[in-house]
């Protein structure tokens, strides 16, 4: 069996995201399960752009997992999302 590809995760560190909970997400090393953490490749990104879409019902902070963008992400939600993504 080939090596499983890591899940690509981008956390937005733009101003709006950072002040509305994004700073908590950057502590991922502390709250994520190490097994999940091992299956992800996490990086920061200057701005995902979600905050600028006026129609969007989501609010910052935004996280991109693979190709999909999630809004209103908190630590608990990130744990759940990444656990699902790494299991898939």
């Amino acid at each position, binding site marked *: 069996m080939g090596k499983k590809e890591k899940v690509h995760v981008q956390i937005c*560190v*733009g101003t*709006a995201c950072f002040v509305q909970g*994004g700073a908590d997400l*950057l502590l991922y090393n502390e709250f994520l399960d190490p097994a999940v953490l091992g299956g992800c490749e996490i*990086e920061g990104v*200057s701005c995902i752009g979600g905050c600028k879409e006026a129609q969007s019902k989501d609010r910052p902070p935004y996280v991109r997992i693979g190709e999909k963008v999630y809004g209103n992400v908190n630590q608990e939600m990130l744990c759940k999302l990444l656990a699902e993504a790494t299991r898939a």
Partner: protein
Amino acid sequence: MNDLFIDVDYAQIYKDGQKIGGDVFLLSRNPENNQIVCTLSDGLGSGVKANVLASLTARMAHKLSFSPMDLTHSARIIMNTLPVCKERKISYATFTIADLRVLPSDQVAMNLVEYDNPGALVFQGSRSLQWDVEHIDLQRDGAFKKEVLGHSMLTLPIGSRLVIFSDGVTQAGMGKSLPLGWRLDGVREFTRTQIEANPDISSHDLAQAIVCRAHSLDRLSAKDDITCMVVYVRRPRRTLVVTGPPFIKEHDGQLVQKIKDFEGRKIVSGGTTAQIVSRLMQKPLKVDMSCWSAQVPPCSMMEGIDLVTEGMLTLSKVATALEQKKPVRSMTNDAVKKFIQVMQESDQVHFIVGTKINEAHQDPSIPVEIGIRRNLIGRLRRALEDVYLKETSQEYI
């Protein structure tokens, strides 16, 4: 902007056990005629009393230097005004005044008045210069001794340094490692080796090095206030700060061209701005997750740009830290610290301010400090000019 910069800074360690210094350093800049006056005064004794004497002296010397009055007359006024010490029955504070004026010929004219402080040192590169000092005798009524003022006029070309210090420096180590202390020759030799080892050493670093050395000679327990001031005449170090996207998208290319054409260090502050620059310069942007704190988002890295930070939060923290003159070494390793380090290592800062409004920042639920970019840049410029005496300029795009 000037093509010559006078870098002035000082370092100070109080006498062991004192919470207030008897050495006082003052610095002002008069931008109208490119004049800078720096004064170092050492009050009799230490602690509060010395500080009162020295502050009075320094402040008077300082004010009088900006007036057209004759220097010897000013000195006499100062000496007659000082309060008398209750124990020693004398009024006494030493001072050194350096009045610097930029000449059109890329040189600085210096008018130096010394009264009982250790002699000032002047270096051209790492070579120590000797010059003739004109001595002016002053006889005051009821004075306990005859005062001698040293007066010298020198022209400092680019690459020269003036080093002024209090007797805490020359007497450091007295009776311990050195029988008579460090002495003027010791300080001169140390300064020479420092400049030789690092020819571009900033005034801040050189003053720190001298003060730390004196402190260590005193075995880390200073016997007197140790103060050192350095003036360094050199070409300005320039920095460009780009913040905010241009008002219309069509100007993006123009902004990037300005960044490319700028000679000096470059900072891009703002997530969207960084993305524009990254896209047009075709250089990838990578967020550096090792450098952030709970207050400010992480820095990013991009080839060709010295520092990439988030925008409003970082700038607002930078402005506050600059206004409060927070020491860099006490800061956490985040974007604010890196930004301030670059600011401190620059002489002229040019701001290019994008005027596009970020809709995401208009949300009432996010902190008030994310205000209007233009106000923030105004605060930054004022802090840089008033507190750090930097030259700044600005343009909108």
